[in-house]
């Protein structure tokens, strides 16, 4: 009896801790990061977000400069606009390429592929979502970048006279387009899996009504199923987008690691916020004033806020989407 009660007590406490731990982890991370990031903001101010130049200064100089009470290596200036642009642009390309493919796959899995086949294909979507990003990155390096540099790029560049952003130098194949495509490949499984589940939940009856009325399966999907699952699917897209915003390794491998300038065309080397943190951490450690580390922390805070916002929005929309389907069926 005594042991049973003790066990139950232990279980309750453990469950309680487990339940609140995500919140504490998040708070802890946020507080530590903020505290770490603050000096960088004091030093740089809002030009942190508008500046083009990222320079950690001369780490080997004997003199340090002091600005707003913050010590910095001489010449240090931290502008992350290129990283913000790189992040947004690459994730946007990922969305533009990935969303139509994902929605088509989800639609096909729910309505077109025979159930017996879908039973085999569906788990593979989840499998793809679970592949480590470094594997996708390696694929980008070995397969995609050469294709972009030698085939896709020259072909797209012909459209440069119509859409200037497509023209210009193609470079090595490491850059914005390659990053965007790798990210697209990474988010397709995520968006596909979620949209597939949402579409599968759409009540059959209105769709049958549409088919019986002489609409094609595409028309029924487009006009009847999609509106019912719309908000949920938007949520799924934002979920994929936030994944693309935060992806580090794969982008680091294929982005070309540019800094100090904005992409001039579709093939320009870029850096994203996440990949920059990873790439510069090592050299930032050499900064005796620690300001470079603080600046990287500020990038992390910025990324955290953006990702949290998109995630929050995504969850909200998915929730609302599920509810819609329940009541309107």
């Amino acid at each position, binding site marked *: 009896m005594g042991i049973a009660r003790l066990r139950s007590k232990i279980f309750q406490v453990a469950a309680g801790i487990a339940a609140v731990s995500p919140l504490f982890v998040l708070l802890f991370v946020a507080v530590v990061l903020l505290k770490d990031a603050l000096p960088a903001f004091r030093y740089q101010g809002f030009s942190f977000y508008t500046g083009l130049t990222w320079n950690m200064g001369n780490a080997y100089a004997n003199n340090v400069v002091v600005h707003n009470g913050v010590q910095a290596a001489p010449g240090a200036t931290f502008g992350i606009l290129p990283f913000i642009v790189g992040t947004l642009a690459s994730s946007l390309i990922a969305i533009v390429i990935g969303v139509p493919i994902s929605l088509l796959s989800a639609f096909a899995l729910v309505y077109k592929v025979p159930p017996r086949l879908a039973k085999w294909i569906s788990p593979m979507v989840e499998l793809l979502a679970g592949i480590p990003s470094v594997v996708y990155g390696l694929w980008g390096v070995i397969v995609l970048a050469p294709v972009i540099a030698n085939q896709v790029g020259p072909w797209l560049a012909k459209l440069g006279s119509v859409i200037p952003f497509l023209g210009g130098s193609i470079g090595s194949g490491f850059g914005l387009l390659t990053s965007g495509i790798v990210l697209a490949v990474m988010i397709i499984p995520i968006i596909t899996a979620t949209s597939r589940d949402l579409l599968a939940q759409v009540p059959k009856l*209105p769709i049958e009504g*549409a088919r019986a*009325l002489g*609409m094609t399966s595409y028309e029924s999907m487009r006009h009847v199923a999609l509106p019912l699952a719309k908000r949920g699917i938007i949520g799924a897209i934002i979920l994929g987008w936030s994944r693309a915003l935060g992806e580090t390794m794969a982008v680091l491998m294929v982005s070309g690691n540019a800094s100090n300038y904005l992409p001039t065309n579709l093939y320009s080397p870029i850096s994203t916020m996440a990949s920059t943190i990873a790439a510069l951490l090592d050299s930032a450690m050499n900064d005796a004033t620690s300001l470079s580390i603080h600046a990287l922390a500020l990038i992390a805070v910025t990324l955290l806020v953006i990702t949290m916002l998109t995630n929050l929005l995504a969850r909200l929309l998915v929730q609302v989407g599920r509810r819609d389907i329940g009541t*309107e069926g």
Partner: protein
Amino acid sequence: MTSDMVAVDQDLVELTPAELKELEAVLTGGRIDVVTAEATKSSVIQVKGLSAYFGHKQVLNNLNLDIKEREITALIGPSGCGKTTFLRTLNRMSHSVPGFRHEGEVSVMGQDIASVKDVESFRRKVGMLFQRPNPFPMSILDNLTLALRLFGVSKKERLEIAKAKLDEVGLYEDLKDRLHHSPFALSGGQQQRLCLARALAVEPRILLLDEPASALDPKSTRMLEDLFMRLAEHMTIVIVTHNLAQARRIAKRTAFMEAGEIVEFESTHALFTKPNDPRTRVYVEEQIG
């Protein structure tokens, strides 16, 4: 059109004065088709030796029946006997179920359903109403016009059709100020009538009804039945119903199905009053209790 073209049905003898008056009105309006003699009514659906399967499971077994145009034919029978499957075979909805296949010949408006190439155009001619109302997730008006829009009907025409069809199902007065509202706030009966108007908007010649009133209250049910009777003046209706009284009220002829077979197919009156098959008798007696 001259009146000597009108073949007179024996049924005319039994008409009430009110019906006669209506008939007269129809005749003077030139609508002679309404009184075409029973004998000359042609079969719009002909079923010969229809068997159907879901995978290895046989659901329909050698059905034979002819469904006459411009009248209501009812299908009754215990649940699971294949009524829905049969009905949905007629507009090839069953065929979209993986593993479904049929044998035998089903001719709908002269076309063998097995050889239908353009399923979409075919289905426009064969409307369907389901067990529960199934409005689309869009405004009342869009529900009525979506299919028309996809078929390329002009906006002006779409609006006219939508109004006419709403009027036809008796909803226009109630809904004319709410055309842009969601249909989900309507009562079940109104939703089902909206779905009927939606089906009618593409001008089908045949209506397939699968227990269309099973989710509705008696008043809405009667309202729908009146509509069906009126529609049957110019279109063919096949209705599945578990409500025998409903079959008696509206159907000219009734088929009793059991275990995937048609046990008996007779004029409704005969089927209910002097069934030939003992299975029909047992079922009818049990249901009416």
